[in-house]
């Protein structure tokens, strides 16, 4: 007989080894360093966010080791990049390493390039059933994510180089949040890729990410949107720092659900069925990502309401962006209920999730393009 203790699920703390503790310690040290250096510029909320971020990333890194490595790599590369600036923004285009690799702009471009390559490789891996190519694609996606985060971090720093008063977290306009969107969607996908041990969905998810990459490129080259702009007064709030990321975990999850739904619909028709995971797995994935998205989108909307109450004097003003957030939310609430109605599984829900992406995209982008309102988040 076996010992029942072998089956005891270890708690998180029991599972930690010394590397995990070292990792958390490093993050905490970083937070303390930042606090000691910049405390005088922060209000109490920002201090809470700073240490909260250290805690959240420690936890994430403990739960998913790869994230820990990513966090450390982003920190290392970003700090190295920043050290090359010598406090002079002009060096971004003068120093070789900065100009071609890790200035904010170049890092973001590398992110774009690697997302494109990753997509191509994922599709290649699927058609050739190549394990090796699949691994390469995963590595490319991780690298793109690394470069993207480095780009954002360095951009954050660059904004302070323009003028201390201009400095702000780079999630404040459409250009910046599109990058955030790519990164979060990629991370969510990588998480499921590991958990479900499947690389065949990468091509589908990266289609959505690359649509965003296309937008970033157009926005950069046609509109010079990559230029850092100062914050309008309404956006100068600590709420932005959590409202926007929460929103994008929502958007990212919904996009992921839509990509998997596309795969589901193909597999259901017998297309690529032998290469894709089983319908049950796909169905489960769709449900999980919508559940995650719904939870975070709820939080984001509530945070938005609290912020609106503080900035505009009312927690709900039926402004187009708010209203569309509600529509997106209602849509997925309906989806979750539909799933519980007996017999409704499969294609109908997959179609619904796919159409959900259109609704979500409109809330995310269309509102800024076609409707006007209080949200000063930027027009095209």
């Amino acid at each position, binding site marked *: *007989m*076996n010992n*029942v*203790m072998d*089956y*005891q*699920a270890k708690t998180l703390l029991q599972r930690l080894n010394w590397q995990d503790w070292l990792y958390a310690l490093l993050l905490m040290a970083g937070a303390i360093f930042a606090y000691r250096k910049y405390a005088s510029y922060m209000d109490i909320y920002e201090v809470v966010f700073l240490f909260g971020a250290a805690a959240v990333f420690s936890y994430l890194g403990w739960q998913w080791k790869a994230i820990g490595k990513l966090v450390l790599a982003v920190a290392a590369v970003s700090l190295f990049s920043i050290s090359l600036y010598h406090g002079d923004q002009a060096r971004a285009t003068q120093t070789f390493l900065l100009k071609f690799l890790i200035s904010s702009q170049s890092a973001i471009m590398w992110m774009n390039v690697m997302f494109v390559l990753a997509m191509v490789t994922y599709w290649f891996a699927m058609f050739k059933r190549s394990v090796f190519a699949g691994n390469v694609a995963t590595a490319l996606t991780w690298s793109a994510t690394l470069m993207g985060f480095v780009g954002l971090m360095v951009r954050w720093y660059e904004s302070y180089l323009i*003028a201390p*008063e*201009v400095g702000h977290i780079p999630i404040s306009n459409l250009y910046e949040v599109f990058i955030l969107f790519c990164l979060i969607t990629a991370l969510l996908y990588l998480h499921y890729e590991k958990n479900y041990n499947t690389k065949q969905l990468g091509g589908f998810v990266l289609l959505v990410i690359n649509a965003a990459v296309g937008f970033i490129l157009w926005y950069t080259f046609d*509109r*010079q949107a990559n*230029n850092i*702009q*100062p914050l*309008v*007064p*309404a956006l*100068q*709030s600590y709420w932005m720092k959590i409202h926007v990321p929460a929103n994008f975990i929502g958007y990212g999850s919904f996009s992921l659900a839509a990509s998997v739904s596309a795969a589901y619909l193909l597999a259901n028709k017998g297309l690529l069925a032998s290469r894709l995971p089983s319908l*049950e*797995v796909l169905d*489960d994935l769709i*449900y999980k990502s919508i*559940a995650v998205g*719904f*939870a975070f989108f*709820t*939080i984001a909307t*509530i945070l938005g*309401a*609290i912020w609106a*109450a*503080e*900035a*505009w*004097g*009312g*927690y*709900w003003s*039926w402004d*187009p962006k708010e*209203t*569309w957030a*509600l*529509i997106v939310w*209602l*849509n997925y*609430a*309906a989806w979750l*209920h*539909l799933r*519980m*109605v007996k017999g409704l599984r499969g294609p109908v829900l997959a179609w619904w999730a796919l159409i959900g992406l259109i609704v979500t995209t409109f809330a995310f982008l269309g*509102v800024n393009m076609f*409707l*006007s309102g209080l949200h000063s988040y930027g027009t095209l």
Partner: protein
Amino acid sequence: MSSMRFAVSMLSVLGIASIIGTVLKQNEPYSNYIIKFGQFWFSFFETLGLYDVYHSSWFLVILLFLITSCSLCIYRNSPLMIKEWRTFKEQATEKSLNAFSHQETYAVNALENSNLANTKQQLILFLNAKGFKYKFKTQSDGSELIAAKAGTHQRLGYIFTHSAMVVIFFGGLLDGNLPFKVQELLGLKRIETLDIPESKVPAISRLSVDNPSFRGNMTLPEGTSDNVAFVRVRDGYLVQELPFRIGLKDFRIEHYATGQPKSFESDIVITDPDLKAPLTKTISVNHPLTYKGVAIYQSDFQDGGTKLNFKVWNLLAKDNHPQALDGTIFQKGILGGDAKGEGANVVKVEYNDFRKFNIINLSPDGKGKPHNVGPNITYKLRDAQGQAREYVTYMQPMQIDGKYYFISGMRESVQEDFHYLRIPVDDDLSINGFMNLRATLLDPAKFEEIAHHLAQNVAAKNQGPNDKALPVNQPFENSVVQLLRNFAQGGYNQVAQVIEKNVPEKEREVAAKAYIKMINLAAFEAYNMNLATNKKPLLVNNAETQSLIQDSLNGFSDMFFYGTPYFLQLENFEHKEASGLQLTKSPGEKWVYLGSALLVLGIFSMMYIRERRIWLLLKPASNQVHFSMSSNRKNLDFEQEFSLYREQIRNLIVSK
């Protein structure tokens, strides 16, 4: 109504209904809608409440349906959920357990007493290790049932989530306009639609200080104070009285180096008999002040009655002596007419807005950086017939394509874009060069002199330097004078008409070119005549001066389409701003936040706590242990967990 299908339909209906209000801009002045839709559709849409969808009765009814459905749903399902939350389902019989889709039967070595106790011990340890709670029940046939559960808090999530919706709705209702709607229906309140002084607004359109919930606006010019706010309702408003007085000491806009606004701040003073000393506080966007339950927010700003000094040029008069004019934003003034300001040619000026900073992107492809082009004013000129045109005039010259111009726009109605008059600056960056040229080109007495100069210069060019007296070319000079006369009556447009009338079609293009060249040369002479009079250095003929002349002539010609002879050049201003405050009292806010907290708690419990149940039936009679497992959500996690447990239990209790 408590069915899930109904819930899904209601969620969809609400979503679709919400779209309407985002497509049609809400709460615009009604006149805008009339212009957009025409009278018939305007009234039709008004009946449907489309201009304020989210406060219309039908929208409220949809919300009510959803909430009723939600409440019924809670009412119907809660007892079940609470039962499921608490119960171990130890009443399950062997027969019902055998019907489970997830089950396994293990044969155990003779389950005699000591072994039975041992096996049971192992299973209990196993359940503990997996975090299950359990209960025992001896069956009638002597077998023993262990009924275990984990994650049943998920059921509370259902109650939290759905009650949260009711709580949020309740909070929203407290802050909504339902009480006013009822009073309006009963005829107790009525919105005011006339633009009258606040003190004249009758009691029926006033809300007392006791009103528990409102959202109103207040515009305070610097140095003034007030104790009422205006609540906008449809095409009218209500006056909300406040339990205290708010004064504005100062309003400030700070700017980034690029000119974009960095902060809006108001220094406000609250005076209240309940306060020993007035309360002074600075509010800004994202940093409101709450006093006596009323939250005071910085919402916008406007002009507070800036004082303006103008030079008024009469563009169509042949003199170049501007008149002085003083004005104040939001007030009116008079131009023209006789000494008393009366007569047929009187024009009323309505000073509408002054803006100190204007961030505009002037780069030709729109890709450059926007920058501040300085102050502008917006005003209307209304003639004796009541016809009004709107003007926007910038104080400082603006750089366009590398050259500087004074810019003034005119439009006849709000739907139109402005048509701009561009007046080039002279060497001193002033408007005088153009105004002098304009006056000269309008003055027939000067035409002969211009023509003469022109003829002389042309002749001088054609002749060698050694020739003596220049010949007089009278026919040429006459034609120049004639051309200038036409030009003075309407610029290029007038000249074009003359050509059309007098020149055969085939020759028109050639004629037009010649005329334009001639006008250019004449204007060049005129410009230099003025410079000479003012003892300034003359223009030399080069590309730069040619473009100055060309721009001046374009400006001259456009002047005839400017809609008025009066050009208001802003000389000086004394800036006075007004801060726009939003005041809210919102008793429902706490409820909404409470509901939100419940909602988050509920959603996370529902989705991340997984309810699972295990039954282990120990059957000594047949030496078997029966294992069955269920969950109310059948997804992959459950399948995996079941397979894992099945094997682990086998390893535990089946000896090899």
